[in-house]
């Protein structure tokens, strides 16, 4: 075991995957020599050379599109979008090709590629550096969308993503890149994609979150010790682990979904629909969601209005518990 941050865990997952499998290549803007603006890929170029770890021109369509070509020609590319806000020039490639190659070629081709991107707010950043764009990726058939919230999962999910036969969008909650450490196995391991994690068992209410918000939910629980909540860390947004969610709702009868992504048409809307479809009669109160407002995420001097804090989660939770069906 070794004590690691999320950032170090991802770095280790990349390192061990490259060590084990020569077909893994890692590239993106400033990814090679510098090891990424967050240093997530630090040391990899030194160890594996400029052929397998390299800096690219500023050209997201080329980064994602070339990964399609590499994938069909025997490589396993792990590419970086410097920030999720800058993934959009590559989005055309993602939607038009990455998500569809298996289907279009009727299974002849498949794309074992990973698109990594730091995402989320709360880091006092410039414009386009704080968005939570889960919806844009979760909406597209053929993609998997994975978001870790702990160092253990970060490593295991990244290793699973690289070995997955299908393309994985891997969003990294940059706010907690270095926020805390966890003792994780030194040897390679995988965490199954498509399975949620019960972060805490409970009976009164189900709280569903992912990424940096899981920790905020955990902090909120300290302000409401009389509420016995079950916390689900979704980990994979798509394909979603509906089973774990439904099982929990059937037990608790109440649900609060917390995410920083914009509210309208967002992930919580989808989760609530599934709950309504499969566990409607178990509900003791209307499902609730605490999300980013439907406004462009503000620059730092207005960001506090937008960012969801534990106090707000506790407040919504109390309101939810007070509701009668």
């Amino acid at each position, binding site marked *: 075991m070794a004590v690691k941050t999320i950032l170090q865990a991802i770095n280790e997952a990349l390192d061990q995957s490259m060590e084990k499998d020569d077909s893994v290549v890692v590239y993106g803007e*400033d990814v090679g020599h*510098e090891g990424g*603006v967050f240093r997530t890929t630090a040391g990899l170029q030194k160890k594996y050379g400029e052929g397998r770890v390299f800096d690219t021109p500023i050209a997201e369509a080329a980064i994602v599109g070339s990964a399609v070509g590499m994938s069909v020609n025997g490589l396993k590319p792990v590419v970086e979008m410097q920030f999720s806000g*800058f993934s959009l*020039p590559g989005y055309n490639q993602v939607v038009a090709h990455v998500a569809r190659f298996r289907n279009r070629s009727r299974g002849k081709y498949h794309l074992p590629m990973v698109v990594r991107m730091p995402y989320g707010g709360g880091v006092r950043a410039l414009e*386009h550096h704080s968005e939570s764009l889960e919806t844009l990726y979760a909406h597209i058939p053929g993609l998997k969308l994975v978001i870790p919230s702990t160092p253990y999962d970060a490593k295991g999910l990244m290793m699973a993503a690289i070995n997955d036969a299908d393309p994985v969008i891997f969003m990294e909650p940059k706010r907690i890149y270095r926020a805390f450490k966890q003792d994780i196995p030194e040897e390679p391991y995988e965490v199954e994609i498509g399975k949620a994690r019960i972060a805490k068992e409970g009976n009164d209410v189900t709280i569903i979150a992912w990424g940096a918000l899981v920790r905020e939910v955990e902090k909120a629980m300290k302000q409401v010790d009389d509420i016995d909540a079950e916390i689900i860390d979704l980990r994979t947004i798509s394909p979603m682990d509906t089973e774990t969610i439904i099982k929990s709702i059937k037990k608790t009868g109440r649900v609060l979904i917390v995410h920083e992504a914009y509210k309208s048409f967002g992930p919580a809307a989808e989760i609530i629909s599934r709950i309504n479809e499969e566990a409607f009669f178990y509900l003791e109160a209307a499902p609730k969601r605490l999300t980013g407002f439907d406004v462009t995420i*503000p620059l730092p001097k*207005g960001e506090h209005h937008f960012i969801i804090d534990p106090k707000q989660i506790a*407040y919504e939770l109390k309101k939810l518990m007070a509701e009668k069906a």
Partner: protein
Amino acid sequence: MLFKDFDPLKEEMLQILDQKGNIVNDKLVPKIKKATLMKMYKTMVLGRIADDKAVQFQRQGRMLTYAPNHGQEAAQLGSIAAMDDNDWLVLAFRELNAMLYKGVTLEQSYLYWYGNEMGAKYDEDVKVLPINVPIGSQINHAAGIAYASKLNKTGEVALAFIGDGGTSHGEFHEGMSFAAAYDLPMIVVIQNNHYAISTPRKKVIKSKTLAQKAIAYGIPGIQVDGNDPLAMYLAVEKARERAANGDGPTLIEAVTYRMGPHTTSDNPKLYREDKEVQEWAKKDPLIRFKKYLIDKKYWSNKKDEELQETSKKEVLDAFKKVEKSGLVDLEDIFKYTYEKLTPNLEKQMNAYKKYLDEVGE
């Protein structure tokens, strides 16, 4: 014709004022009014101090992330000074000097980097688009402005900036192709400061010069000493004449250097040698421009000392106001989403206000 005399494929670079401040190309010295030269210089001094101070404030924890301009002032000021008042300025994000020259206030600039959107709301008559972070996308905006100008025969020309790294982006290519196809009145100045964050320009761009990319679009391209304000002025002046004549866009590569970090979050020691930085320090645009003005008897060391003092005061005063600006109001993060607040947004805002009332901030 200037653009014929400097072949970008042969790396022929236009220079008029060398790094010591001596005229090396007598015949090409552009005719610039004294008032214009002095406005350029005064903006350069103010811009330099404001830039260095912004980095210092950030180090003290009083400013958020900042993208320094130090060393790139002439590339910006030579360009903007050659434009008309009626023209447009389309920004990337490292053009403080061009902004100040064109009427964006220092307070507004600081406020933006301080983390307040109000800093991107320039005065009504200031034809400058807000700072544009997604690399390359601004070139298409400039093309659109130029198209409207051409259609409505307003005579306006769009001047856009981009970095060396930005010229690899699809958006750059698309915007250039679009503007060239319709002979639009657009000028694109590439500030080739040799790095895109940690990535050296030579490592990821095969073209000998960035100016030569113009050839593919069927328009003139010229490489210019970006630390020479006179050469930059001349190149943009000629490009503007072309634009005004309906001859279409021009691509200008300003060869310069970013003396500071990419932004205050960046550590340049990871990717470049101090020796290289020191070499470029000798090419400082401010030193050569000042000498030129003193040689011309437009300026003196004594006046310069006074200017340094008043500029410094101006910078400190502006930042003082910014530091007093406080946080953004809740209403303001909703208000500018649409022309009118939608019922959905109103509901979200009111629910949040109720929460604040009940729980306190």
